[in-house]
């Protein structure tokens, strides 16, 4: 008889263990990891309750190379090849702001034709970067044609880069004091024909992607970042302009010859993931417009570079300069103490500044929205880790 009671107690004890479903049981932690096809070299751990994301913990750093520490071991010219690596597809813009900061530090101004060439290179690079970002945005939403067209049309602009800067992507073209070489012989007509054809190709994206009702359903009203929160979080670039703040460094704090160029700052008020994906597209059309203006305003002759001594000494002091790169305001804060190597270089990249909006937007959204919100933030993991 006694073992019968034991069995009953045991069964009672066992039934006690089946407790009510706690909160922890409902949540499933998913690591949208560095190898995940939907996140690039970046990981964020999300807690999912059914189809809703409850908690997001971004964990960058997989491609952290310590560029700021590397800057302290190289002189101002040797920094160029390594500083262009974080924003590989936007290398003219990331070097543009470095060169501006060094020129501000040393106090030289670049000859006029050099400024024009540098501006044309940075606008062309904006096209190349935005095309690459748009291609990945297409494949994130499962639209394989939208991956192939931009990735193919980008080749038109990369071909131009091959002609004048010698490299397809890592062209290391702008240098403190101007640009490294002048345009080749018949560059102007080739550039105009290819940029005009490129703009004609852009019109096609509207039919197949932006006006596609399925794309609209997936992005309109998704990931709302209201204007005050956008300002409070200090986001930059297309994410800010999509929330209704028309802030573009080229218009607000014009560097080099951007004050002579007239162009509209594209911004929308819908603050959702559709606006954040449509603004870079409008920027691309605006950039084509700017390139045409630059090409017919460029002075015919004149040197393109101020010759600086190889290991020039930076005067003690500091400078902070910003440039509107493909993703937003990209600033360099260079402190120098008179040696030929910078004492401290702080790169403030737009992706690092937009990362804060990721957890703000993803919490409460659906798992299906994760790619369209995450990539509409124009987040480039390599640039955020530096």
């Amino acid at each position, binding site marked *: 008889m006694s073992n019968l009671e034991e069995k009953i107690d045991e069964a009672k004890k066992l039934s006690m263990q089946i407790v009510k479903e706690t909160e922890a049981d409902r949540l499933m932690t998913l690591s949208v990891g560095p190898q995940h096809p939907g996140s690039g070299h970046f990981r964020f751990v999300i807690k999912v309750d059914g189809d809703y994301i409850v908690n997001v913990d971004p964990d*960058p*750093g997989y491609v*952290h190379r*310590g560029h*700021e*520490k*590397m800057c302290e*071991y190289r002189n101002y010219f040797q920094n160029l090849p390594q500083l262009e690596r974080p924003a590989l597809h936007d290398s003219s813009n990331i070097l543009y702001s470095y060169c501006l900061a060094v020129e501000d530090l040393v106090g030289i101004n670049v000859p006029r034709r050099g400024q024009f060439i540098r501006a044309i290179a940075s606008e062309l690079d904006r096209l190349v970067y935005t095309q690459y970002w748009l291609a990945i945005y297409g494949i994130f939403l499962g639209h394989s044609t939208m991956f192939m067209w931009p990735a193919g049309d980008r080749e038109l602009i990369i071909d131009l880069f091959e002609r004048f800067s010698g490299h397809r992507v890592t062209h290391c073209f702008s240098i403190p004091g101007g640009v490294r070489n002048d345009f080749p012989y018949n560059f102007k007509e080739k550039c105009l024909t290819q940029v005009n054809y490129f703009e004609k190709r852009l019109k096609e994206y509207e039919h197949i992607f932006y006006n596609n009702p399925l794309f609209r359903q997936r992005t309109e009203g998704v990931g709302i970042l209201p204007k005050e929160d956008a*300002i*409070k*979080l*200090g*986001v930059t670039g297309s994410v*800010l302009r999509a929330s209704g*703040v*028309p*802030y573009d460094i080229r*218009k*607000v*704090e*014009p560097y080099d010859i951007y*004050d002579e160029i007239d162009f*509209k*700052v*594209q*911004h929308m008020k819908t603050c959702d993931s559709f606006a954040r994906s449509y603004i870079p597209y409008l920027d691309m059309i605006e950039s084509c417009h700017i390139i045409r203006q630059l090409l017919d305003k460029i002075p015919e002759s004149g040197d393109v570079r101020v010759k600086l001594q190889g290991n020039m000494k930076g005067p003690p*002091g*500091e*400078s*902070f300069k*910003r440039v509107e790169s493909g993703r937003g*305001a990209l*600033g360099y*804060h260079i*402190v120098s103490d008179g040696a030929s190597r910078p*004492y*401290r270089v*702080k790169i*403030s990249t737009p992706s*690092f*500044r937009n*990362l*804060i909006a990721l957890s703000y937007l993803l919490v409460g959204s659906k798992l299906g929205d994760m790619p369209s919100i995450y990539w509409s933030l124009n987040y480039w993991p390599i640039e955020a*880790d*530096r």
Partner: protein
Amino acid sequence: MDSNIELKNENILLSVSSEILKSITDKFSNRIKIIYDIHNRSKIMVEPESLVETAIFLRDNFGFDHVESASGTDYPKEEKIEINYHLGTYSNSDLLPYVLVLSTKVDREDPKSNSLINILPSVELFERETYEMLGVYFIGHPRNERFLLPEDWADIPPLRKDFRSKGR
């Protein structure tokens, strides 16, 4: 549909920045030191204690609502780590290109500085990175922990001058 901001020319800007600096100096006369005021950049040095106060004052009076970049620089000779916040503005339309550098010096041995996260939320990731790279503990910051470096990082904070990167 978009309002095109008409641009102010430089000299109005200079007067605006000097007017800001004048109003700051008469408010915090003794604890403020103006380092430089050129083109549209100016830098003010503040004691660590009055950092939060100045930030609140700047945010409320002049509309400095976000941080362009916040970083630290290690000065081993003066035994100090200098933290500077580059304050920018989106809402105050006549100060748009202007960047004010609010900086403070913190002792190098046990660097502590109160965090501006409640005043300017955009500093959260910058401060966390400065903690990791320079070892400056931000009081009030929710997550003073590892951010970019690998999990098993056992060395001293890498951006300090006495950290020798192995390859060189």
